[in-house]
């Protein structure tokens, strides 16, 4: 019996015996928000403070209770039959539950996150997977996977995709890696990824390129983490020079998110270093800019208020203050001002060489 099934059964058994004794059944899960995390500087990720959200079975909670138990039953089923369901599929499964069905996927996602947190596990272990694409990979890496039908080992050479790329699957737990690369370069936009891939930047600098396509998915984060641990190579992150790039993309990759704090331990990349566009770069490279948007400003202010990662890092505080003062942001692609290949020929080599320009 897997750990997951054991936990599901324990929880259900507990509720069952409470009902038999006509006592109030309860489930509890950690509160999932930035308020309930602290930054663990030693291991470099957000961990839970331990605030618990208790849900007692009453007339008010009876519906959510039913839905949670239904989801647990579905999960048990999936794990037992070695099957998976995407979050979207799980939402559609609920349409069979009559009155207990979910009206929106947001509701079913929230219940799923609760179960995850309740068991302190990740959804993949419950048989649920994300809907989104996990990210693209190109460069000096061989991924060792299994043929889903025969179970035979498959070696995937990420240098052999030409102008295309390898797609990160939603469950990366059983992948193995062979690589001689010197570092991983995680890139915010697909456009920049394609430019670097086209110029075979991975060959000239002996690295692995990963396109995150915005905020990295859990699978993408876990993939980069495992890769960097296995191969023991550094990770550099290349994003736009704006609060979204700093906080939502880089911070999430590096230390995890408030919402999934119960699994951040595995879904973070403490080794990551920021080599994306900094406020200083905007000045030094005389980059074309856009004004900061309302949401950008709010994001920075909220960060100062309740993001433990910012509280811990003086250099980031300075960078964020600088960008607020400038009131401007610059995109990765803005480097093209100095020529389409400027990023390959000048920017990246210069940044990688100058350790002082990195942000932690």
């Amino acid at each position: 019996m897997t750990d997951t099934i054991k936990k599901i059964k324990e929880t259900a058994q507990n509720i069952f015996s409470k009902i038999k004794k006509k006592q109030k059944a309860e489930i509890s899960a950690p509160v999932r928000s930035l308020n309930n995390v602290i930054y663990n500087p030693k291991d470099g990720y957000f961990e839970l403070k331990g605030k618990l959200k208790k849900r007692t079975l009453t007339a008010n909670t009876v519906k959510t209770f039913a839905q949670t138990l239904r989801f647990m039953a579905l999960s048990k089923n999936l794990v037992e039959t070695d099957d998976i369901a995407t979050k979207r599929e799980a939402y559609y499964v609920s349409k069979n539950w009559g009155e207990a069905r979910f009206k929106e996927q947001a509701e079913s996602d929230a219940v799923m996150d609760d179960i995850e947190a309740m068991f302190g596990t990740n959804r993949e272990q419950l048989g649920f997977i994300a809907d989104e694409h996990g990210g693209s990979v190109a460069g000096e890496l061989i991924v060792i996977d299994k043929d889903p039908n025969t179970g035979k080992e498959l070696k995937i050479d990420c240098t052999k995709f030409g102008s295309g790329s390898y797609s990160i699957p939603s469950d990366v737990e059983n992948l193995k890696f062979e690589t001689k690369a010197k570092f991983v370069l995680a890139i915010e936009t697909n456009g920049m990824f394609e430019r670097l891939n086209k110029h075979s930047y991975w060959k000239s600098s002996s690295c692995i390129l990963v396109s995150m396509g915005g905020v990295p998915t859990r699978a993408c984060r876990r993939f980069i983490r495992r890769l960097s641990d296995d191969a023991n190579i550094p990770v550099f992150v290349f994003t736009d020079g704006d609060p979204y790039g700093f906080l939502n993309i880089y911070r999430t990759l590096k230390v995890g998110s408030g919402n999934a704090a119960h699994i951040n331990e595995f879904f973070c990349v403490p080794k990551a270093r920021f080599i994306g566009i900094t406020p200083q770069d905007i000045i030094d490279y005389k980059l074309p800019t856009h004004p900061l948007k309302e949401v950008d400003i709010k994001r920075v202010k909220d960060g100062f208020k309740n993001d433990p990662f910012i509280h811990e890092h003086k250099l980031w505080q300075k960078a964020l203050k600088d960008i607020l003062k400038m009131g401007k942001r610059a995109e990765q692609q803005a480097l093209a001002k100095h020529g389409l290949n400027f990023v390959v020929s000048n920017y990246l080599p210069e940044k990688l060489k100058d350790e002082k320009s990195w942000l932690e």
Partner: protein
Amino acid sequence: MTNTTLEDFSENKDEKGAKKSKTTSSNAKAYEMAKGQREISIAEFFEKNRHLLGFDNKRKALLTTIKEAVDNSLDACEEAEILPEIIVEILDLGNDKFRVIVEDNGPGIVEKQIPNIFAKLLYGSKFHKLKMQRGQQGIGISAAVMYAQLTTGKPAKILSKIHPDEPAQYYELKINTQKNKADILRHEKKEWDKESGTRIEIDLEANYNKGAQSVDEYIKQTAIINPHVTLIYQPPKGEQILLVRATEQKPKLAQEIKPHPYGVELGMLIKMLRVTRAKTIKSFLKEDFSRVGDKSAEEILENSGILNKTKPSQVSRDMAEKLMEGIKKSKLMMPPTDCIVPLGDEMLEKGIKKEYNAEFYTTVSRTPNVYRGNPFAIEAALAYGGEIPGDKAINLMRFANRVPLLYQQGACAVTDAVTQTNWKGYGLQQSRNNMPQGPVVLVVHIASVWVPFTSEAKEAIAHYPEIIKEIKLAIQEVGRNLSKYVNKKRKVKDELKKRNYIEIYIPHIIDALKEILNFPEHERADLEKDLGESLEQTRGKLDRMEFDPTKNEEYDKDLANIGKEDKENKEDKE
């Protein structure tokens, strides 16, 4: 010149001069005009201004005639402490002519008074009395007789009996509108199989309609506000309707009070000074007014600068004016309020329950208050929900001294008090300063020794701030009770929804548990029961709040259905 008054003009002592000029002044226009100037009898005046008395149109004439006769009957019965039983009959004579018959079991009228009461305007016992009663001026019934005579030329026929041992007196009467006195066309004794009572038959030009301002509505509302009355009503078409009294309990007898100094006007004061039997002005104040004793009489006179021993007959106009000032300056006790006989919560509720099958009733009886020296009391009742339609403005019923007010709603102080109240706080819809909307019937009753109407037709209450304030307080109280009920109802509804929830989702919880734990099927029922019990355990007992149409035992379907047959006529067509 500006300060000159007529008194300062010098006197013309030249008698000769007057004589001299007579020859030339005899052609003065004023002599010619004088030929057209003569006394106008009060009857002539009202003949030309009959709208002032409620005879503006044929439809209203029918209602006013019946109303005046019934008001008189009820007042007489109450004064004689008889439980009233009143017959109202309307006969359609064709050509817009109707015969109205109103018969009561009252004390009857003494033979020689009959012509004056029915055929002399401003004759009666009520004008000089400060007492809570329906009639006030002594105009009503004789105005009806006059209207009948003007439109049909027929006399009014009156039969009255005062004792079982005496014969009934029969009169046929017309009003001499020149002299404001009765013309007796016929007078004889008749046998009448009744202990006592009065019956009047009047032929008049009229229109019979149904709807909001109809005789039907008047009869219905009269039954609501007078639960001790039995009414036998025969409309021109259809079956006789019998409305049996809801209580055998007679209303407490209203006490007559003397006027209070605060309520008296200069003209009235002068008149009272002239007719008083008191020897001194001090004893005049003490004897002819309420709430004036030795001390307060002296206070008034001191404030007026008038000597205690002054004879009332010697009080000049100027002195009377000073006396008015003195009254204003003096601190007097408010008049006694035990002369007001409100209906009371219980009777009011009985009345409204008879007519409306609602889910919630609330009543308020305010303690009496005073406006301009006149005691008055406000009562309000509210019925909500059930069979009351909810998609339009609330139904407001106004009553004054137990008489329904069917006309002039817009000009009435009651209406202002209702529209100025914020009903949204009580759970009804309302756009600013309008009648609120919702399934509500609101009854407002003002009882007073002198109800201030806006006109002699007695259709709307005048806007005295003290009265509006009291009405508002009464409305607010029933409003608060309403909102308590509406809130409770909503809570119960929410609670029912939650309990419903429990029933819906329990099977899902058990299903899921079974899927995970795979317990034997036979345990399911017990488990569902256990879970259901533990969930409902904490929720306590629920009051039943649904409307039960059979719960209202007072409900009188016959009464409620009066005038409901043709609703399309409901709006006032004038």
